[in-house]
């Protein structure tokens, strides 16, 4: 398999390029497995790969470089605050999961 980043030839079963280290397929953002470029779902966990990181995405293009350059820099305390906020939101999401009587019966079996 040819690496689309550095064009080096690799063995078919390799997951990463032996020359530049780039993934040789689509990286599943749920389980981290590498899948064939044409795969639509992860062969390991079944997760949809549409939004996953493809190899060509590993090298930022001009627009991405501009976006990164203009990105806001966060301080450590701001990051901590954001993480706490995320945790609180996740906790709230959990408590609002609604069950019907059928779900409850299954829970109590």
């Amino acid at each position, binding site marked *: 398999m040819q690496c689309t980043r550095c064009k080096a030839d690799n063995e078919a079963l390799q997951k990463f390029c032996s020359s530049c280290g780039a993934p040789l397929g689509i990286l599943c953002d749920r389980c981290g497995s590498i899948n064939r470029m044409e795969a639509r779902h992860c062969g390991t966990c079944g997760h949809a790969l549409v939004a996953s990181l493809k190899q060509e995405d590993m090298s930022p293009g001009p627009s991405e470089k501009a976006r990164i350059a203009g990105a806001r820099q966060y301080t450590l305390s701001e990051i901590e605050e954001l993480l706490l906020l995320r945790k609180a939101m996740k906790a709230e999401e*959990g*408590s*609002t*999961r*609604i*069950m*019907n*009587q059928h*779900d*409850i019966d299954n*829970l*109590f079996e």
Partner: protein
Amino acid sequence: MQTSHRVLVVDDSDHMRILVSRLLKQRGFQEIDTAVNGKVALEKVKTSHPDIIFLDAVMPEIGGRAVLSEVKKEHPDIVVVIMSSISACEEIVQFRDAGADFYLLKPFESDKFGEVIEKVLAIVQAHKEG
């Protein structure tokens, strides 16, 4: 068919106490007592030791979960059915983990109540035999 099992119905709503007591009578229960709050319920548990408790989850002062924990700590053989309109998963799981045997989501149909009663009676019978 009449049953001699003792039942305690705990709810701060008069309407619910009357309704559940009526449904129990229709199914042959004769020894039905009621409690208007958690404090009265815990006193009645000590004095009359019911076989089954129908317990409201949300009550002033001593809530259903506190009553449940206290009852199950002292009398694990008492079958407790929680009656509540709370449908949030995490809260229901907390009741289960505190020892609740069944959870009836309010408002419930008479048929559903009957279905739970059948299961409750099977557990009570198993306790008495075992």
